[in-house]
């Protein structure tokens, strides 16, 4: 499991497109997944150090994916991509074991800083 490997999960292809570009520019190895099911598959083979996880997705939402990822041995760090101003969502995310939150929309720099902060922990 390489810390430089990032799995990006979102059902919006254009978000994946931009995140992939930004993270690759920063030197990460990036893999993308379009829904929860796909994300769990990819996590097995790709073994990412960090997973960027959208909350609202078809076929297993972000919370469930997060819970499953965190129940593995040597789980990856998880950053949830959430809607703004939803304290309940944050609490729910905390309880399933997410490590950090990024509120959509976000700045590229903000995201990269958050990833680096997590990696340094």
């Amino acid at each position: 499991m390489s810390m430089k490997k990032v799995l990006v999960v979102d059902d919006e292809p254009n978000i994946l497109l931009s995140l992939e570009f930004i993270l690759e520019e920063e030197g990460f190895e990036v893999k993308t997944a379009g829904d929860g099911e796909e994300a769990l598959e990819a996590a097995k083979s790709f073994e990412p150090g960090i997973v960027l996880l959208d909350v609202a997705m078809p076929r297993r939402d972000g919370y469930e994916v997060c819970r499953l990822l965190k129940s593995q041995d040597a789980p990856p760090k998880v950053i949830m991509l959430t809607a703004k101003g939803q304290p309940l969502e944050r609490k729910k995310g905390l309880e399933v074991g997410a490590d950090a939150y990024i509120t959509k929309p976000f700045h590229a720099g903000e995201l990269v800083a958050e990833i680096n902060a997590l990696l340094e922990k």
Partner: protein
Amino acid sequence: MTPAQDRQIPFTQRIRVRLVSAIVLLAVCPFALAVMALLTSLPESVGSTPHFMLRVYVLGSILTVVCIALAWRFADKLLSPLLKIRHGAEIVSRINLSHRIDVSTGDELESLAADFNAMAEALEGAYSELEDRVREVTVSLQGEKSRLASVLRTMVEGLVVLNEHGEVLLMNPRARAALCTGSNPALGRKLTQVLPAQRVEYHLKQLRLGWDEGRRDMVEPVIFPLAGGRLLKGVMAVMPEHNYGLAGFLLAFRDLTEEAERDKRVDLHLRKLPSMLRSPLSSMHSLAEILATRKDIPEEKRTAFAAALHGEATACLKMLGEGEEVANSMPSAYWPGQPADAQSILVEALAARKGVFAELSNPPEHLPPVAAEPFGWVAAMSTVIGWLDSHSNGWSPLLASIEAEGDMVVTTFSLNGTKDISPDELKNLSVEVEGEEPISLTEAVRRNRGEIWTRSHGDDFEVRLGMVKASLLPEEDGGARIVDDQPEFYDFDLFQARPGFETGDLLSRDLSELEFVVFDTETTGLSPAKGDRVVSLSGVRVRRGKVLSSGVFHTLVDPGMVIPPESIKFHGVTDEMVAGAPKMGEAFEDFKEYVGEAVLVAHNAAFDMKFLELAARENNLVSMDNPVIDTLFLSFGVHGDLQGHSLDAISDRLGVTIEGRHTSLGDARATAEILVKLIPLLAARGVRTLAQAKAFCDRMLILRWQNSRY
């Protein structure tokens, strides 16, 4: 033997016996004395012969028999007018002061009757004076009542008044429109049978608790979700009596169904909007950031990002369009429109701008009504007129005309020879109404679902104002649907509890406390067995000894056969009238629901009941087993067979006027009035309860049947 019989039959018999005995004694005693005197004066040999004694006995007996017979006839002659006087006196004292006794025996009895009539005359005079006074007061009360009635009628809220048991005493038309369905009159029923029962109980309980704690002005907010997604919202309050008791409850409500539906849609969309927009906007944000901050993006990536950006923007615009659609479907964004006449609006608008040199063309025929808030349109139009007038060259008039174009009715203002007129100026005009916030002309037009635009041909400049046709407006559940009817149900005298019929002691209840439905049928003929059927059925409610003028049941019935002309002559119901009317099965079910647990009353009830039973049998319905009493036999029992007992004869005697004789409703109403007047007369004869009344009817039925055979 009931007190009634005790008083009626021996009255005549006792006098008869006394009279006859007195006369016989008076006649026979002198004879006996004469015989005795004769015997003592005669020689013994003559006086004691058996032959002579026999003659004396025979003569004596004949004399006695003749005396008795003569006395009997005399008593009859004397008693018949006496009885007449007695009945007359009773009618005058109890029911009808204008009743006069007609006795022409040419003796003291006649003068007794005349004296009595004079007394009744004087009494009637005094009474009518009193009545005049009462009438005056009543007129002023009536005035208040009708003012209250018109307040209630025009109220936007539905208003229901309940007695302390939660039974509906009165409701305004708005409430009736919201709560009454078909033949379900709601009046007189418990509110729990009309609105969700548990909620009603809950709120009534809260109000009673509050009342017990001394909170006289307590107001309880209520919401009643009804079937079909309907929603009523309002308040309930207690109503104190003049002596500080609890008189009942008041429910005022609005039907929020439409508003709630609308709010739900808007709410749903508003809630959905952020989450719908977040994703595409987040994508756009990221993509735009990359494109803006990174200079070294490979061409192929840049193209992909630009395409993605375009795609997301398109998605956003699509969502925006959907939101717009929802917003446009919201009538609350408009002022409430009402059907209005475009021509009168135009005339008003021109009148509001005095001194404007304008020419108005005649409107086309059959101009459809427009949907508008008329005052708002007049203000908007007169703003346009004023603006155009300020650009007028002074010598050509402002031409105004109206025509119907498609879904709109368009008013055109045309000005010739104007210079430097800018359509943009028009948009920025503000409609100013004293005491109101000024709004832009565009907004004023939009609120009325209208359109405004300009066009020019050469020297002519036109402003066109389009108004939407009223027929395009969804029908509003407003005042227009409410039937303007009699305010008769504002009968505040009825503010007392009605005894429950559920208790099962119906039979022992006092007649004056019972609820009756007095009904009548009109039919195709007199013989149901030979195929005659009902053509109309009416019922009138009598409660607490009062005929209720509201909550009447009336329906024409399709008999499923041609109505014979001789019956039409009788009741006036024709084949055309019953075409489309309900069949008897349906009418019967409605009537049964209307009657509920009330006691059935009819004049010659057997006839009408036969038709009801037939209706139940033919349609496989449960027949009505309510107790029945019959005004024919009640009247017969009260006034004996000296007098007639047809509806007309009784009405005449008791001072009841029949409006619409031989219509089922008219006859039912008259019968109800008769019942009400008979109740105190029955009480005087010891017939007070329903059980006694039924037994009385039964007895009179047998008596009358016997009489009819001789």
